[in-house]
C-alpha cells in the first residue's frame, strides 16, 4: 500500500512524470545497444565475409588484428560504449562513412516515408473507424473490422510485394521501386540547399513533372507501410467512438434530437481521438520497424534500406550505430508524445 502510494505521489506531478519518462530513455537505449552489439558479433566479421576467400589463415588473422577484432569482446564493448557516450557513433567498416553522416543523408528519406505512411494511416484509419462505429454490428462494420485485422496482420513486405505485383507489374500505374526516377533524383539532389525530402525539394522547383514523379514513387510504399498502422487506428477509433457514443452527454444530445452524424462530429469525435495521440507515439516505433522492410521492398533508400544493406555486409559498426540512432529517435519521440499527451489529458500521468 505504501509503495503504491509512493509511486502514485511520484508520478502524480507533471514534473515527476516528465523526469521519470526522460530517465527511461537511458536504459531503453542502453539495453538495445548492448543487445545489438553482442548479437552482431555472433554472425561474424566483415573482413572474413569480404576477403576471407583469398587470404591465407595468417593474412586473415593479421587483418582481423589490424581492425581490432582480435581483442576480447568486453574490451570492444566498453570501448564502444565510451564512444557512444561521447556522441561518436563511429565509421562504417565497409565504406568508411560516418554514422552521423548516414543518419543525416538517409534519415530524411525515412522521415519522408514515415510522414506519407502516417498520412495514409490517418486518412484510412480515422474515417473508416468512424464509419465502423456508426454502423456498429452491421455488415459494413464487420467488413471494416476484418479489413483492419488484415491490414495489421499482413507482413509489410508481403503487402509491399502484393501492391507492386498488382499496381506496378500488372496494371503499370506506379513505378516499381525507388524514390524517384534517376533523372529526377539527380535534379533534386543537385538543387541548392537540398533538404533530402524529395517532395519538399520538388515543390521548391515548382516543376509538376518532378512533383508527379516523386508522388508516383511514394504511393505504393506509403500504402504498404501506412495500411499497417491504419488497421490500428481504425480499431482504436471505432472502439473509442462506440465508448463515447454510449456516454450520458451523448445520450442527452441524442434525446434532444441531434442527428447521428452530427452527434459523432460534434460530441463523440474529439474525445475518441485523444487516445490516438498516445498511440501515435507507439506507432512511431512500428513505423520505423516497418520502414526497414518497406524500404527494402521498394528500394526506398532511407535508413532502413541502409540498415538492411549493412546487415547483409555484416558491418556491425554501421548496424550498431544506426540502431542506436533509431533507438534514440524512438525513445525521444515517445517521450515527446507522452509529455504532449500528459499535457492534453492529465489522466495520462496516472
Amino acid at each position, binding site marked *: 500500500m505504501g509503495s503504491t502510494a509512493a509511486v502514485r505521489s511520484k508520478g502524480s506531478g507533471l514534473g515527476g512524470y516528465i523526469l521519470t519518462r526522460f530517465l527511461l530513455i537511458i536504459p531503453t537505449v542502453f539495453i538495445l545497444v548492448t543487445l545489438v552489439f553482442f548479437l552482431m558479433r555472433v554472425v561474424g566479421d566483415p573482413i572474413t565475409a569480404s576477403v576471407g*576467400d583469398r587470404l591465407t589463415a595468417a593474412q586473415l588473422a593479421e587483418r582481423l588484428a589490424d581492425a581490432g577484432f582480435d581483442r576480447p569482446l568486453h574490451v570492444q564493448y566498453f570501448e564502444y560504449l565510451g564512444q557512444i557516450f561521447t556522441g561518436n557513433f563511429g565509421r562504417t567498416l*565497409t565504406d568508411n562513412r560516418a554514422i552521423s553522416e548516414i543518419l543525416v543523408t538517409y534519415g530524411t528519406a525515412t522521415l519522408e516515408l514515415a510522414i506519407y505512411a502516417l498520412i495514409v494511416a490517418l486518412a484510412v484509419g480515422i474515417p473508416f473507424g468512424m464509419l465502423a462505429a456508426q454502423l456498429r454490428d452491421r455488415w459494413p462494420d464487420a467488413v471494416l473490422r476484418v479489413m483492419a485485422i488484415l491490414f495489421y496482420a499482413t507482413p509489410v513486405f508481403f503487402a509491399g510485394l502484393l501492391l507492386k505485383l498488382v499496381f506496378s507489374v500488372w496494371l503499370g500505374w506506379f513505378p516499381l521501386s525507388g524514390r524517384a526516377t534517376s533523372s529526377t*533524383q539527380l535534379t533534386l539532389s543537385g538543387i541548392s540547399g537540398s533538404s533530402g525530402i524529395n517532395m519538399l525539394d520538388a515543390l521548391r522547383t515548382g516543376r509538376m*513533372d518532378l512533383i508527379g514523379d516523386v508522388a508516383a514513387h511514394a504511393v505504393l510504399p506509403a500504402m504498404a507501410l501506412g495500411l499497417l498502422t491504419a488497421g490500428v487506428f481504425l480499431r482504436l477509433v471505432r472502439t473509442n467512438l462506440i465508448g463515447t457514443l454510449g456516454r450520458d452527454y451523448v445520450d442527452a444530445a441524442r434525446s434532444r434530437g441531434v442527428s447521428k452524424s452530427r452527434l459523432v462530429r460534434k460530441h463523440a469525435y474529439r474525445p475518441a481521438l485523444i487516445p490516438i495521440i498516445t498511440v501515435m507515439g507507439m506507432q512511431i516505433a512500428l513505423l520505423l520497424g516497418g520502414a526497414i522492410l518497406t524500404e527494402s521492398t521498394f528500394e526506398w533508400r532511407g535508413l532502413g534500406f541502409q540498415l538492411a544493406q549493412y546487415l547483409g555486409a555484416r558491418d556491425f559498426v554501421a548496424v550498431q550505430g544506426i540502431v542506436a540512432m533509431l533507438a534514440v529517435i524512438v525513445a525521444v519521440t515517445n517521450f515527446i508524445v507522452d509529455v504532449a499527451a500528459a499535457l492534453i489529458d492529465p489522466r495520462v500521468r496516472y
Partner: protein
Amino acid sequence: MATASFRRRGLSVVGTAAALALVLAACAETEDPNTDDGTGGDTGAGITVGTTDVIIALDPAGSYDNGSWAVMNQVYPFLMNSPYGSPDVEPDIAESAEFTAPTEYTVVLKPDLTFANGHALTASDVKFTFDRQVAINDPQGPASLLYNLESTEVVDETTVVFHLLSENDQIFPQILASPVAPIVDEEVFSATEVTPSADIAEAEAFAGQYSISDYVENEVIRYTAFADYAGVLPPAVTEEITVQYFAEETSLKLAVQEGDVDVAFRSMSPTDIGDLRTDDSVVVHDGPGGEIRYIVFNFNTQPFGATTAEADPAMALAVRQAVAHLIDRNALSEEIYQGTYTPLYSYIPEGLTGANTALQDLYGDGEGGPDADAAAAVLADAGVTTPVTLNLQYSPDHYGASSDEEYAMIEAQLEATGLFDVQLNSTLWDAYSAERTQDLYPAYQLGWFPDYSDADNYLSPFFLTENFLGNHYDNQEVNDLILAQATTVDEAERTALIEQVQDLVAADLSTVPYLQGAQVAVAAADITGVTDTLDASFKFRYAALGR
C-alpha cells in the same frame, strides 16, 4: 473550441494532402521524365544502365570490389589498359611502358594530359598515386597487389620509373591496369587517408573516358564524356550515361524488361536471365567471365590423405582423378545456372592468354562429358575399395543462392555410379572461411574473381607451396614453372610455361575447376556496342554503348 477547430482543420489538411498526393501520382503514373518525349528530364538522349553492384568507395585506395571497380574503369586513367576485345594490356595514357633494367619499369606519359577539372596530369600524380596506396594500405583496399613495388621515382614531368623488388616481373604491366592503379589527382586526394567519394565527384578528379557530373552514392551516377581523354580506348560513343543502382536482382530485371533502363549489367539470377532470353524486347549478351568455381582437395585430410590412418598418395590421387572423371560440367552449367556459368576444363578461364583444356584432355569422355567407366578403372587400378566416403563441404551463403542445388547435383553425379558415398555438409561463410584453412574440410567448394586479367592470377595464388588455399599441395616443378613464367619476357615462351603448369596441375589435381562465370548483359534491342566491351578483360566500359 479553438483547439477543436484546429484539429478539424488539421485533419482536413491531412486528408486533402493525401488526396492530392494520390491525384498527383495518378496524373504522373509511371511516366519517366527521362523517357517520355526523349528530351524531358535532364539526361537528354543518353543511355541508362542498371546494376545491383554496390560502390564501397570511389577512392582506389579504399575499395577492392566489383561495384567500385566498375566506376573506376569509366572515369580514371590508367598507365596500362586493355583495348576492347582483348585481355592483354597496352599503354593507356602512357606513350611507352617497358623494362629499362631488370628491376626498373619506365613509363613515359603522353604530353599535356589533364584531369576533367583542368588540373595537369603529370608524373608527379603517378608517383602520388602509388605512394599513397602503399602509405594508406587500407584493409578494404588493393595495396597488397603492389607486393613487388619498392619505390616510384619521378624523372621528369612525363617520366616515371617503378623500382621493383624482383626482376623482369611480367605481371607488373597487368598490375598497372588493375584496381590498385587508377591514376588520381594529387590536388584532390589525400596522401594519407581514403578520400570521401563525394569530395572526389565534386572535384571532378577524373581523366578516363567519362567524368562524373552528378553523383548520389549507390543510387544514381551521371557520367559525361571527357573530351580530353587521351588513352588507348576510343572516345565515348554516347555523351551521357546514367547508371541506376538497384538493391534487388528482380527489380533490375523488371526495370530492363519495362524499358526503365537500357542496359542491365550485373547481376541477375540464372532464372531471371533464362526468362529474359525469351523476351523479344531485350537482347541477352554473353561474354567470357573471369570468375571460376572449383573443388579444393586437402592433401592431408582427403581420403587416403597424408595424415589419415590409411595414407596412400597413389590412392589419394585416384580418388581425385575419379572425381574429375565423374563431374558433368554441362549439366551444372545448363540445369543449375541456365548457361550463366559455362563448363571450365582448365585452371585458367577461357579467353585469357595461355588457357588450355588440360582437364578435358585427361578426364571424362574427352569431349567434356563425364566417364563413369574411367572413374571405376582408375579406382580399381589403385586398389581403392568402393564406395569411397568423401566429405564434401560447401558454403550456402557466399557463392549465390544456387550453391545448394549445385552441390546437390555434384553429390548426385558422384554417387550415381556407386563409386562414392558423399557426405555433403554446408557451413555458413564466416565459419567456413576460417575452418577451410584448419584442415577441417577434406574437399570443399571455393570460387575466385581475378585481381587482374592474367593467367598468373589463376596460378600463383593456388599452386605455389605457400598458397592461400593451405591445402598442403607441394610440387617443386610447378613452383619453379610458376615463378619462371612470371619473369619470362618472351611472350610465346611465357605462354608455353603457363600451359605446362596447367598440364602438371591437371595431373596432380590439387583442385578441380568446373565452372567459369559468364558475363551477362541484357540490353534493349536498339543498344549497340555491348559485345565490344564484354570481353576477357572483364571491364565493362559504358563508353562503347550507343544506340
